[in-house]
């Protein structure tokens, strides 16, 4: 069950500045869910604007929304809205901001989209360039023959 984060005991507001300059005013208890921000606050108590240099405004907005709304139902639907590129950028953001719940949700989502898929499919999804030589690739397929059994058809 999601906590009632909107009825915060602390009404202090904090400003977060995304890498593209977009500003977000958030309640202290929301910002504290980002452990990186929490550490920042612990270091400089009077700070009012915290720079978030690695995260675009677009993604910071999504992250803040997630923190406010997270619960079982929300998390289940959350990942469906984003393409693979956004998912990865959100994961990078969650990693930098140190929000374990969001990281876990995103890792699961990315894994779900590639589970049991062929290497060709996975490469396409992530834009990975195959720089194995044909001999190397054949050798790997032989070495790990058991791992290549039962893969979904593309």
């Amino acid at each position, binding site marked *: 069950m999601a906590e009632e984060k909107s009825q915060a005991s602390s009404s202090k507001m904090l400003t977060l500045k995304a890498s593209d300059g977009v500003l977000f005013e958030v309640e202290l208890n929301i910002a504290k869910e980002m452990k990186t921000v929490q550490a920042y606050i612990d270091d400089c108590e009077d700070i009012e604007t915290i720079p978030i240099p690695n995260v675009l405004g677009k993604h910071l907005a999504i992250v803040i929304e997630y923190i406010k709304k997270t619960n079982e139902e929300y998390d289940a639907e959350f990942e469906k809205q984003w393409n693979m590129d956004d998912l990865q*950028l959100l994961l990078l953001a969650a990693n930098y901001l140190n929000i374990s719940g969001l990281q876990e949700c995103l890792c*699961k989502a990315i*894994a779900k989209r590639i589970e049991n898929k062929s290497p060709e499919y996975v490469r396409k999804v992530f834009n990975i360039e195959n720089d194995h030589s044909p001999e190397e690739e054949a050798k790997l397929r032989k070495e790990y023959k058991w791992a290549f059994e039962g893969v979904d058809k593309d």
Partner: protein
Amino acid sequence: MSLFNKKGNQDDQIDRISDLPSNVIDGVLEHLNIRDVVRTSILSTKWRYMWTSAPRLEFHPNFFHTYEYIHYPSPVVSKIITDVLMRHNGPINKFLLFIPTYFNFKLTVKLLDMWIPLLSRRGVKHLELLNLETALSHLPYIVFSCKELTKFKFGGFNLSIPPNFSGFKRLLNLKLQRVTFESGALESLISGCPLLEELSIEYCHRFEYFHISTPTLKVLSLGFDKNMKSICLKKAQNLSDLTLMANDGWVPGLIKSLPKNIQRFSIGSSFNKKIPYADIIPPTLVKSSFNSIKYLKLRAVKFNERGELLYIVSVLKSAPHLVELVVESYGHLDITQGSDCSEELDCSSRCLNQLKTVNINIYATSHQHAMSFIQFILANSTSLKTLTFDVLLDSREFDAPMLLSISQHLLLMKRASQSAQVKFIH
């Protein structure tokens, strides 16, 4: 969402994942089965050895299912597991082997003598060995030499403790499932875990007493059958979260003592075997231990019995700090009506002052008496935020007018808390 869209701006063409920090990649690999994990080696030269430093190696039933058609899968399967362990290169945080039921693969002493020392050298902290194939064997002694374990789960073995057992000194979390205890084995095991905080014992055999001194324990979950004779928890001074499940029905007087500072308590039985709560948690226990309870879950409550309902109400009155209550009553109850006891339930004592959330989940036939109970709660909970009444319908009994009348009745009930929300789910 088009995965193969070659149009769109340059950004969509970037290979981000190969450059993600390794802890982030490990986070994704964690949620993939072992085949997917190992197959990443073929994605590109950068990925060739990435899987070998993934900190978790897990062989779930879906790995074993592929080999079900083979007569003697043991050599095939054990070779693959050994291969993976040998090629892996780095610390192994978690190792899991979950062999499904009826799969013809025995976790032999020979195999574990090979794998466990390797895992131990790689610093394994979390070990799970679940062996659901029918022929039980003893948990090989080599497992007890994994001194760095912090989390250990095993099932499908006989438990006997090696004579030179020096304990799992760092173990915090222990889970046992379908284990048969040799005499004194459980006690020896637990006393070898001085830091144990979480313990779960389910579907185990020769499990007749729980009198174990566990001063560091915070969370305990016990599932037991009719052979359980006595549960004594007064020595678990730090225990705050307790779950007791009788798989075969309760024996009256089973619980000899409860810890004083218990905060979360869940109690129930499966297979519809019910006995009155007055016998399961007698008044003396309630009086001495329910003072600090914040979360209470009562399963298999007989709503259509007046005495039972009155007793539950008296239990609630002895839990002044209760914040969340869950009451369940599933399975086919006898359809006898039982008398209406709404007058006997005191609706004026304001006793449930901290109660914020209530979930009542029942099977259709006992709804009238559940209504009296709900009326009592609504009238007495000054802090109530949400009450959810979830009714599993038996289509013979229910139709739209009946549901409507329940909804209306709920709306009309007097509430001590102005902000209380009542949800009726069917």
